């Protein structure tokens, strides 16, 4: 009997030890940064991270997307060293520290072959509310409009509805997407659709041969230039956020991401660098 108990105890201990080893061996965090959050900011931080890694061998920076809310939450819970947010902090979020690394705007996109060049705010609101359902009502071809909306919790959506004074439940969408790229992919694949995404992502893709076109908002052409000049109405800061104590590595990386050394990368991604 002694023996049986002995073995059972050993087996349990073995399982526990294994679990603990697994749970604790995430060591080596000195040279690791986990950055999560906004899919708008992620491509930019990815290229910045690549350059940073090249300069500091041995450092590894993992960038994961999931939306601004997740970036904030992960930073708060310590799941990520740095969170990415494509909006400013709201009231009640001052427990974290946000550092802007670029500015971006939100623009409307349609398929490249769509003859419509611009929409008024009223037309746009009507389209998103389902009151206008055919392109011919706004000067386009006779075809039903496919409205592409962002999923709940995305800051692009929040900014969009806030700007146009919409409520998300009022929007009559035909397709709901998550990431910016998913929105662009959907619009590029459907000639009669309309969606809204980050200007940076849209311009990057449009100039790289993706079949989309950027629409003017309120008469202002969506372009990096207009965002830089502060003319474009739908603009927002791209932030890196941290909560509580930060590691020297995280501080150094954030400083690097703000510095002159990455402005070319910011511009290549069609965002507006922050003046130092």
């Amino acid at each position, binding site marked *: 009997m002694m*023996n*049986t108990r002995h*073995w*059972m105890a050993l*087996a*349990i201990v073995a*399982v526990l030890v294994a679990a603990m080893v697994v749970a604790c061996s995430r060591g080596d965090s000195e040279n690791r940064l986990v950055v999560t959050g906004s899919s708008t900011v992620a491509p930019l931080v990815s290229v910045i991270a690549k350059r940073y890694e090249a300069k500091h061998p041995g450092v590894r920076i993992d960038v994961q*997307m*999931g*939306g*601004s*809310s*997740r970036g904030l*939450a992960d930073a708060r819970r310590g799941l990520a060293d740095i969170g990415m947010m494509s909006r400013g902090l709201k009231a009640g979020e001052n427990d974290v520290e946000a550092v802007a690394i670029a500015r971006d705007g939100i623009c409307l996109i349609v398929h490249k072959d769509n003859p419509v060049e611009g929409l008024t705010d009223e037309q746009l609101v009507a389209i998103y509310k389902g009151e206008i359902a055919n392109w011919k009502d706004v000067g386009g071809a006779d*075809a*039903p409009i*496919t409205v592409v*909306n962002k*999923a*709940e*919790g*995305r800051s692009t959506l929040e900014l969009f509805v806030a700007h146009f004074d919409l*409520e*998300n*439940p009022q929007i009559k*969408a*035909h*397709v*709901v*997407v*998550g990431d910016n790229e998913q929105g662009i992919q959907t619009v590029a*694949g*459907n000639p*009669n*659709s309309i969606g809204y995404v980050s200007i940076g992502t849209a311009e990057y893709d449009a100039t790289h041969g993706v079949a989309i076109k950027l629409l003017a908002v309120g008469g202002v052409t969506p372009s990096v230039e207009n965002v830089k000049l502060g003319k474009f109405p739908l603009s927002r800061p791209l932030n890196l956020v941290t909560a509580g104590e930060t590691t020297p590595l995280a501080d150094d990386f954030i400083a690097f991401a703000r510095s002159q050394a990455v402005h070319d990368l910011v511009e290549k991604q069609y965002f507006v660098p922050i003046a130092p």
Partner: protein
Amino acid sequence: MSPSHRDRALGWVLRATAALVAAIVVLIVAFLVVESAGVLRKLGPLRFLTDPSWHPTSGSFDLTAMLLGSLLVTVGAVVLATPAGVASALFCRYYAPAPLAKLYGRMIEVLAGIPSVIYGMWGLMVLVPLIGKWQPPGPSLLAAVLILTLMILPTIALFSDAALAKVPDRYVRGAAALGLTRWATLRGVVLPAARSGLFTGVLLGMGRAIGETMAVLMVCGNVVQTPGSLFDPIRPLTANIALEMGYALGDHRSALFVSGLVLMGMVVVLVGTAELVSRGRLHG
């Protein structure tokens, strides 16, 4: 260590292993319950059925549209895949010449092993644009039903084939001796004899359809609404989890675990029924 001590030790190690395996199920259920408990306690289960819409960040948690979506997609797929799957099995066993039957059987096996993401990709790149040209927007209930039909067809076909294989040859010979035609034999003798096996296959196919995520997510449009027609986009429960889990927080995250719990409940009921049917305690 003496051999008998070694045996006893092995017995305990194996028991510990099996207990760990059994614990996984308990853990899954426990985690679903614990993670959903927050929002369930705060709002009560009824809110998930009576809220006006699914806007979890604004505090509306209605799951009915997505439940309906899951249900419609599943029923549609089963309605299409059952005749096609059973016909495939009949084709293999009673209609096709031997080499063709073997080839066709292999093809069904390969189809059964193709990952859902590939069905989804093909649906997204080929099927959705086709439907979009005919009845915009394209991503729709219909697309999801068609892709799911393709996915569960092999399951139903393989189970039907196994069920047909168990029908004793003498039934068929007996029927032939009575001068019955092939179809009359199949309809009157073989299919009824294989009934419970066929039903099990359909139930398991249904389970797969309800639980399928990726392929549906890629072609259904993901709009939370009660569809007015086959061409309207929808969002089933599984797609909802996959779509929003990445960034959901607090009550929203909790609510996604509630949908997980609902899904798990539906599948457990289906699997249980399938088991009863295959043991011959129920008849379809």
